C-alpha cells in the first residue's frame, strides 16, 4: 500500500517538474515588447506604424521596428547623396521616394495632392508630423532594424539613410527572433 503511494507521489512530482518548466518557458518567452515588420512605403501606412510605436513606447513597451522593402524609402535622407552606385541602383534611387516628405498615399494620392492635403489636415488638427514622430521615436529608444537584403536589392546605401540614434542592420532572422519574444507582433 505504502509503496503504491510512494510511486504515485513520485509520478506526481515528475509531472509537477514538467509543468513548472513549461510555465517558466511561457513566462520568459513573451516580453512587454512590440515588433512590427514594416514593408509598405505608403505615407498612411508608415504613419500608422509610427503612431502605434510612439504610443507603445509612451506606455513603456519596448519597440522594435523592422524596415523592409518599400518602407526603406522613408528612412532615406534627402540631403545625402551616396557615391559609387551602379546604373540600376541609380535608377531605383531616382524612382523611389527620397525620404518621408516624398511618400505617397496608398489611396487618394492624386499625383501628390493627397499627401499634401493629409499633411495640411494633420497640422490643422495638431497631429504630430511624421518627421516629428521619427524624432520622438529616437528619443523614446525605439529600435529601427533595417533589412540589409532589401536595402541592397533596392540599391540603397547605408550612407544615405537618416541619422537615427538606434539604427541597426540585420536580416529576417533578427525579426523572427525579436518577434518571437514580443507580446505584440504586427505586419504593416
Amino acid at each position, binding site marked *: 500500500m505504502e509503496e503504491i503511494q510512494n510511486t504515485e507521489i513520485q509520478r506526481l512530482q515528475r509531472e509537477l517538474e514538467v509543468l513548472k518548466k513549461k510555465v517558466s518557458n511561457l513566462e520568459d518567452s513573451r516580453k512587454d515588447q512590440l515588433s512590427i515588420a514594416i514593408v509598405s512605403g505608403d505615407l498612411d501606412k508608415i504613419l500608422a506604424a509610427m503612431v502605434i510605436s510612439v*504610443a507603445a513606447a*509612451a*506606455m*513603456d513597451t519596448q519597440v522594435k521596428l523592422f524596415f523592409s522593402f518599400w518602407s526603406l524609402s522613408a528612412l532615406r535622407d534627402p540631403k545625402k547623396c551616396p557615391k559609387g552606385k551602379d546604373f540600376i541602383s541609380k535608377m531605383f534611387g531616382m524612382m523611389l521616394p527620397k525620404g518621408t516628405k516624398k511618400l505617397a498615399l496608398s489611396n487618394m494620392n492624386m499625383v501628390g495632392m493627397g499627401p499634401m492635403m493629409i499633411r495640411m489636415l494633420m497640422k490643422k488638427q*495638431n*497631429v*504630430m508630423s511624421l518627421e516629428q514622430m521619427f524624432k*520622438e521615436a529616437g528619443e523614446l529608444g525605439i529600435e529601427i532594424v533595417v533589412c540589409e537584403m532589401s536595402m541592397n536589392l533596392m540599391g540603397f546605401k547605408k550612407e544615405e539613410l537618416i541619422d537615427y540614434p538606434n539604427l541597426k542592420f540585420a536580416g529576417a532572422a533578427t525579426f523572427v527572433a525579436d518577434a518571437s519574444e514580443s507580446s505584440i507582433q504586427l505586419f504593416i
Partner: protein
Amino acid sequence: MSNEELKNVSVTKSIDARGTACPGPLLEAKKAIGTIKAGEIMEILSADEGTKVDIPKWCNKQGHEYLGTVEENGYFKIYMKKK
C-alpha cells in the same frame, strides 16, 4: 472620484496637451510622470477624445491610479495619481 471631489483635488503637476492630438497627450504624460513623486496627483488637459480612454489604460498598465475625468468646455481634465 466624483466631479466635485476632482475639482477640489490638489494637483502637483498640470500638463496642457490641448495643442496636440493622439498620441501626443500620452507622450507628454509619460514625459511628465517622471517629474512627480509617488502619491502625487497629475492632471492632463486634452482636447482629444481618444486620450480620455487611453490615459486610464496607461495608468492600469503602469499601476498608477486613474482618478477620473472632468469635462470642460471643449476639452477634458484627466486626473491620475502616481504609483
